[in-house]
């Protein structure tokens, strides 16, 4: 039985400076149903990693996060994570939501062995003794596909390869048996084969551990088949959000279209033609649609006016003046 596990409503992240404040993420709305996988795609610097930190209230105080992050766990009352105190949200971080950051190695404490870190995490999250936590930790290492749990237990992070560090970090994220796993670009540090293996592992875990996954990525090869929903972020705005299948077959937003056609051309091995108006990443327009300077179908109307929100009949949310028609 699928239910909305996480609902994000009008999330906005601003960087507050004494003189000015800058909006880094705005009007983020999405719903993550249990056991689904939501993929967030977009360019680097588009606010993808920021979103993950905002969801768990991990941003330093000079970031202002407004909006609602509603978490419902089956029969419990819905809770707005954004308005919890540090102490209250720690319970969720420990037992409900796991997170895997981009650089697996730097996410591990260099002076503690992998086992010790996992044992501590398990002991805190599940409130068990260290002896029990030790057993659970060994099982977790096996769960994430590490072949010799006992050996890994005594290993220090610097002795791990990239793929192994990734798995240890994943085991740490699973320490509290979370329902929801947030993953930030899990594969950018891995080679193609390791990527594929890692995604298979995530698929496997989703089934065996009843996990719901929120994944930031730009690895199209691996998300195309498994994501249920895709959220496309451009310059802090979710320009398109909808069913993965539909998005993949028929993107409405020119940016999504650009991304997917580029990827599909690459996949077919054809020579790619870069998007017509080149770069100018620096020259983002101060008002109007932020994609306008690079948009292949830009019109005069796009510049002064911020695109308004559209809800299409199939449930797609879109920010564009002139969406591509089917």
């Amino acid at each position, binding site marked *: 039985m699928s239910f909305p596990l996480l609902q994000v409503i009008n999330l906005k992240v601003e960087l507050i400076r004494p003189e000015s404040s800058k909006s880094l993420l705005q009007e983020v709305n999405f719903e993550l149903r249990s056991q689904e996988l939501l993929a967030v795609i*977009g*360019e*680097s*610097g588009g606010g993808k990693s920021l979103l993950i930190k905002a969801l768990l209230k991990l941003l330093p105080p000079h970031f202002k996060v407004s909006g609602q992050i509603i978490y419902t766990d089956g029969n419990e009352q819905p809770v707005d994570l954004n308005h919890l105190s540090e102490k209250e949200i720690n319970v969720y971080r420990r037992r409900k939501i796991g997170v895997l950051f981009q650089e697996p190695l730097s996410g591990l404490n260099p002076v503690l062995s992998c086992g010790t870190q996992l044992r501590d995490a398990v002991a805190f999250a599940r409130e068990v003794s260290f002896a029990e936590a030790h057993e659970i930790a060994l099982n977790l290492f096996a769960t994430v596909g590490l072949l010799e749990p006992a050996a890994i237990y005594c290993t220090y992070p610097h002795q791990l*390869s*990239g793929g192994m560090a990734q798995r240890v970090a994943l085991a740490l994220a699973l320490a509290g048996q979370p329902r929801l796993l947030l993953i930030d670009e899990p594969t*950018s540090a*891995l*080679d*193609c*084969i*390791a*990527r*594929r293996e890692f995604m298979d592992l995530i698929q496997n875990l989703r089934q065996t551990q009843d996990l719901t996954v929120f994944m930031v990525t*730009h690895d*199209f*090869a*691996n998300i195309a088949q498994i994501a249920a929903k895709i959220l496309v972020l451009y310059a802090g705005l979710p320009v398109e959000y909808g069913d993965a299948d539909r998005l993949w077959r028929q993107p409405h937003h020119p940016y999504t279209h*650009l*991304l997917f056609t*580029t*990827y599909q051309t*690459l*996949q*077919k*091995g054809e*020579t*790619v*033609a*870069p*998007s017509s108006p*080149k*770069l*100018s*990443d*620096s020259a983002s327009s101060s008002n109007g649609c932020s994609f306008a300077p690079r948009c292949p179908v830009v019109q005069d109307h796009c510049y002064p006016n911020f695109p308004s929100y559209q809800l299409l009949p199939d449930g797609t949310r879109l920010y564009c003046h002139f969406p591509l028609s089917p």
Partner: protein
Amino acid sequence: MVSIKSNLNLEPEMNHLSANPILQVENLTLGYRRSAWFGTSSRQQLIIRDISFAIQPNETVALVGQSGVGKTSIANSILRFLKPWHGNIYFLGQNIWQIPASRFRLIRPRLQPIFQDSATALNPMMTIDQAIMDGMKHLKLSHAEAQQRLNELLQMVELEPALCNHYPRQLSGGQRQRVVIARALATEPSLLILDEPLSALDLVTAVQIIDLLRSMRQRLNLSCLLITHDLMLAQQLADRIIVLKDGVVIDSGPTQQILTNPSHHFTRQLIHAAGILNRKT
């Protein structure tokens, strides 16, 4: 495009080498030795065993393999950072591990690496134009010539001249990678060594850089050695692909042949993992 005249005092035989390969690697064997005090005991680790390949003028060869297979060690050896255990490396006809360092220094500017991480490849205290000018020091150009060349290079890599006096941290990843490419091109290289040049970039930026590299190669008659784990990138840029596994070459041949008709099952695995669609069907 104004042609760039070389002020390099290269020896005559090196200038008419057009028929010979730019780079030739013969029976290269690489490894690391870790020695303890006074060499009492040393651990040896073999990384690359007996690899041979050549890069012809205006050709791009891709070395493909999983991380940790020793691709970067090969690049380091060609750049004269890592001494091979056995084998020879000829660059522009010179056996680079046999010639004295002073002579290697003369041909070294002709050999330019571009690494994955553009953020650390640039000196944070140098502006963009300083970084690129630095690349053409050995050409001993006058100020006006250097300035003209700088403008040509910026135009070539499609960077706005306004960015000239910016510092690396003020640029995006794609822009920084363009600066790195411009700096490499400033030296009039014969061979570019591209070590995972795109893995830090997102798709749209990566495609722009692919396009840039492709047009550079044509305009400047460049040869490239591309080092990557991603067959999709190799497919876009390389004329020939060499697949490495466990320190040896397991598959090699023209790009089309490798992709449509791989002889080794590991190559098939790589193709599958990269998400490349099989064009035979």
